[in-house]
């Protein structure tokens, strides 16, 4: 069981997906706060502004298609950073193209998930991610 005060960082520009994800987590009484970055720049700011003082997220859910700074660039920044590179990053994408999957793993994504279009399926997948990354997985400190 992971530390309940450490946040989950959701990097997602689509307000509906943000809302759905939050609701899916809330339904299951996830106590970790969910921080939302609405584009790549906000995601980078989240890490850069707080320097060494932030509580590391237990997991980062990262959409690939983002305005301003795209998801791959955020992934690269995180996975080459001396402190942040250990944080699990789950790439959420509407693409199931082989090339996108390969690139994401090569850049150090911990997991790659295709976002379901269907609402019920979306809730199921978010729920599965919650169980896996908030309960089962041991995050680094």
């Amino acid at each position, binding site marked *: 069981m992971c530390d309940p005060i450490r946040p989950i960082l959701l990097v997602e520009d689509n307000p509906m997906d943000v809302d759905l994800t939050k609701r899916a987590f809330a339904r299951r009484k996830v106590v970790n706060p969910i921080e939302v970055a609405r584009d790549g720049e906000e995601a980078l700011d989240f890490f850069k502004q707080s320097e060494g003082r932030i509580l590391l997220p237990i997991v980062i859910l990262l959409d690939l298609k983002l305005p301003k700074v795209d998801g791959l660039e955020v992934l690269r920044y995180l996975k080459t950073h001396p402190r942040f*590179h250990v944080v699990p990053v789950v790439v959420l994408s509407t693409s199931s193209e082989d090339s996108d*999957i*390969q690139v994401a793993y090569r850049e150090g994504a911990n997991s790659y998930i295709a976002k379901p279009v269907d609402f019920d399926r979306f809730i199921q*997948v978010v729920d599965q991610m919650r169980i896996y990354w908030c309960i*089962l997985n041991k995050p*680094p*400190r």
Partner: protein
Amino acid sequence: MNNTDRSILLIEDNPMDVDLTRRAFARRKVINPFQVARDGEEALAFLGKWEAGEALPVVILLDINLPKVNGLEILHQFKTHPLSQKVPVIILTTSDEDRDIQVAYEQGANSYIVKPVDFEKFVDVAAQIDLYWNVINIPPR
């Protein structure tokens, strides 16, 4: 999406744990073929098989307390080899030492799971691992 034609590679030296893991997965009707490496040398031998064209596993479950070659060393070898670098590696171990967790993520582990001692709980964990890595996660080819 299921990847049941691709194998799960289990790297574990304790025969009882190998047996328990197989049984836990079988209980959940996981039908992927299981490949087992019983020590670090056997694990590293897989690199040669993959170079020879054998299909990559869908996920690797790696114990870190292994004879001959330490599990974290195997992780390092797998995560720096061009073929196996992208394959998700889940550390499945009894150790919940901070240092092991930290080093595992530093070396590129995709996830770190502490093995429950209780069999029924282990069956649940096996089910979650299967559901996450075999059903919702998209592995690289």
